[in-house]
């Protein structure tokens, strides 16, 4: 029963897609580690966070089945990220311009 027999929803991720996701995540981790060794200086942090965001996306889509979840779930995901960004912006906007 449990949403298993639901025609109107996209079918469950296949085992293969899970494996692919795992490989992708491991790969990105190594890339991120490598990038850190290059000492990119100022660019280092954005790069690292960019990769992290990509990985988070992979986990959300492949493992957490975010695309199968309801729209509200996707909205929540976005809002959450947005609010963390907001808080950081507010505090940095204070410290940096003091």
């Amino acid at each position, binding site marked *: *029963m*449990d*949403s*298993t027999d*639901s025609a109107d929803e996209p079918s*469950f*991720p296949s*085992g293969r897609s*899970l*494996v692919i*996701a*795992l490989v992708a*995540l*491991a790969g990105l*981790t190594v890339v*991120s*580690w490598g*990038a*850190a060794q290059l000492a990119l200086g100022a660019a*280092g*942090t954005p790069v*690292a*966070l960019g*990769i*992290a965001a990509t*990985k*988070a996306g992979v*986990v*959300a889509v*492949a*493992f*957490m089945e975010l695309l199968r*979840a*309801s729209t*509200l*779930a996707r909205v*929540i*995901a976005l*809002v*959450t990220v947005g*609010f*963390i960004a907001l*808080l*950081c912006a*507010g*505090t*940095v906007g*204070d*410290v*940096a311009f003091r």
Partner: protein
Amino acid sequence: MKPEEIYADRRARTHALHLGMWIFLGSETLLFAGLFGLYSAYRAQFPADFATAVGHNDATIGTINTLVLIVSSFFVAWSIHALRGGHRRMCIASLVTAMALGASFLGLKTIEYSHHFAEGIAPGAQYTSTELPEAGARTFFTLYYAMTGLHALHVIAGLAILGWLATRVRRRRTTTERHVELELGGLYWHLIDVVWIFLWPLLYLTG
């Protein structure tokens, strides 16, 4: 009153439970928001010190831990996949593997903590190390302990949940037909993974 009386059918209930879980996950994530806010503010205040302090952290352990959590996350996802396919034993096996990985994550964390304590790098007032720049490094490591500590608490909770789920599957309470709790528990474990995916570069890489 009984759930059956409230909802039209079980699918409606499953939907509701998923919704509730997602909202809860959002709330959980914002628990870390404050720490991320502090981190970015202090980093803007002591850029140089933070860089040095990050460099002082053992990137190898951090990276291994990242891989460990990712793989454990995979096994949790796999356990759901297995159960949906009706492979009960494989489901249990992958859950146990995931738990083992989670435990080893905590093990590595403990080793790391002990190294730090040995160097007098303890949170807040207990911070005695002098080799690193005084002002920034102390703050960095206090935040480091707060962030990783809060995360570790979630890992422990996650392990408990996974254990509970494994026994439910073994006792045939959670089955191919109805396994919403497995999906929800999985979501929680993946969130723990996602949080760490961000903590790792901030605390180990961007030196």
